[in-house]
């Protein structure tokens, strides 16, 4: 098991290294290059050359990459120009991160906690009206674009019916103490219940919007996987042993059915950042996704670099976690 994890960690480092090269190549190939990005298009050749020298752009590529890597490892990505002007790019990422973690965790939790039981339930009643209805809804869930779901939710629940806040993470006028940066958790830790409740209300709509696709996908995979497993010979063996329905379901059906679901959860978790870009923008929710959208639109390359690299690392880490969970459940991977 330990060897398995170590091997995966090593693979992970290689992946991140390759990604950093791609990022470096991409930054170098920006229209006009970093110099134009910083100085604008209309500049005297002298000033351009001076900046190029200052940035080390006149050196050979391998040297530049090495310096780039050094800066990355030391967390020096430069200063934000547009998202939070004047702030260190890494700090921009770090201040925005908790907001997105809070949103993504809630969305994924919703998707898993509703998707898996519902998928199991639909499989047990495959072919029934309940099953057909849920499958159709899940199809719609996958097909509708996230920003449209977000927009609809916002329009009805926030604007028309005024049930939930329209945007942001916390109402003005609430003076909450910050501990972790996860607003709901902060409210609970400091027992500022009104602040926690207020933050949660701000989270509900964006989280629902963000959860729709992962939910629909997890639901469908769970349903299909349970149907497959119910047909397996070993379930018939378990029935032939006279085991109780509860034992057969939990020990023999669910555990095997969870293997493909786990992979799906990992993939969906990795895809949440993409969804967060749209959701956070619609709800003016100041998280990483919104920062990514802004930095891209406004050409804030320092911030963009951090976010892309962070997204890659997060994606790889999630994959590692999924692989570990997989190995825990499936001995065929663990004991080889």
């Amino acid at each position, binding site marked *: 098991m330990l060897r398995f994890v170590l091997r995966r960690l090593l693979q992970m480092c290689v992946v991140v290294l390759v990604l950093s090269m791609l990022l470096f190549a991409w930054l170098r190939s920006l229209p006009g290059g970093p110099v134009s990005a910083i100085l604008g298009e209309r500049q005297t050749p002298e000033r351009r050359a001076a900046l190029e020298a200052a940035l080390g752009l006149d050196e050979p590529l391998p040297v530049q990459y090495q310096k780039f890597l050094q800066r990355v490892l030391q967390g020096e990505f430069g200063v934000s120009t547009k998202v939070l002007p004047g702030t260190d790019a890494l700090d921009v990422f770090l201040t925005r991160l908790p907001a997105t973690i809070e949103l993504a965790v809630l969305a994924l939790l919703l998707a898993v906690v509703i998707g898996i039981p519902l998928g199991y339930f639909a499989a047990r009643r495959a072919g029934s009206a309940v099953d057909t209805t849920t499958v159709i809804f899940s199809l719609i869930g996958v097909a509708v674009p996230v920003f449209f779901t977000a927009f609809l939710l916002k329009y009805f629940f926030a604007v028309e019916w005024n049930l939930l806040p329209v945007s942001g993470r916390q109402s003005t006028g609430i003076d909450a103490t910050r501990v972790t940066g996860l607003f709901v958790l902060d409210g609970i830790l400091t027992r500022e219940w009104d602040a926690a409740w207020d933050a949660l209300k701000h989270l509900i709509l964006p989280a629902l919007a963000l959860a729709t696709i992962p939910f629909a996908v997890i639901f469908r995979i769970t349903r299909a996987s349970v149907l497959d497993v119910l047909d397996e010979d070993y379930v*018939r063996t*378990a029935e032939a042993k*006279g085991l109780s329905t509860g034992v057969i379901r939990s020990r023999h059906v669910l555990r095997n059915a969870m293997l493909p679901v786990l992979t799906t959860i990992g993939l969906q978790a990795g895809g949440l950042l993409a969804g967060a870009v749209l959701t956070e923008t619609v709800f003016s929710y100041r998280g990483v996704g919104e920062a990514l959208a802004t930095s891209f639109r406004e050409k804030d390359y320092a911030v963009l670099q951090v976010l892309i690299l962070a997204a890659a690392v997060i994606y790889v880490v999630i994959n590692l976690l999924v692989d570990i969970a997989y190995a825990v459940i499936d001995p065929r991977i663990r004991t080889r």
Partner: protein
Amino acid sequence: MTQHQTIRSSPRSTEPLLSVRDLRVTFQRRDERAFKAVDGVSFDVRPGQTVGLVGESGCGKSVTSLAIMGLLPKRGNTVEGEAVFDGDDLLSLSPSQMRDRRGADIAMIFQDPLSSLNPVITIGRQVTEVMERHQGLSRKEATPKAAELLDRVGIPDPKARLANYPHQLSGGMRQRALIAMALACSPRLLIADEPTTALDVTIQAQILALLKELVVDTGTALVMITHDLGVVAGLCDEVNVLYGGKIVERGGRHGLFRQPRHPYTVGLLDSIPRLDAPRGEKLNPVPGSVADNLPWDSACAFAPRCSHRVDVCTREMPRWDGDDVVGFRCFNPVGGPR
């Protein structure tokens, strides 16, 4: 030991342990006519007896055994008839009463040992769970018994094997483990559905020898299902030959092999691979296939493939000629009428 030997020496005087009467299983397939997979099968199994169900693939052997066990799919089929086990008709028991019987009084082993074992649970757990369920043992109490069972079915180093997963065992060892699970609660009846078909030839012989030894030792009655008459030859007290969902011939182990009456049985006997046959020599299987059988209603289902066919075979259904010990279903049996 002595007890079941007396039973064996006079099997017919004892009350049947399992008595299957006129079992019919019909599948309703979408957009198709109802399909009779089992069409009026009757046979008895007496305590300690080994009874064979033999026939080509698709003749209804598995469906018969699954119907008796109550393991057919919940939808899409109807089961009629009786399967009286120890005074109760299994086919009319409630699902929960049936759960109490399965694994405890009647156990079953299946064809493919790899797919029949749960890949993510240890062998030990898969053995102990039966004892926990039916004998009220805790997992801890059941574990040493599980090791004993594995030892008994010939698995070397049983204590270490308890912690293994199915993929870490060989095919033969897996089937042994499944046999251990089936025998964990000392059932009175064991149904083995082609238990050696998925195994290598040498392993097949070992598993058959093991089954034989175990049923003799424990006095468990055995229903041996196979497509290979050669498998039942040394094992069964009584053999039932199935064709198209009906029993076409039944006989004692000696009678049936020495003097088969139904042309289909003759064909099956000819297709047994012989050890003394020159290598590569073609076997002599029954010509045709089950797929082109007719329904039994208006003719003999075997008629299209039969070399002994006479006119009446395609006009009428042959009746059962015999009793519940020997008999056949044929208008023109090999060796002339009784």
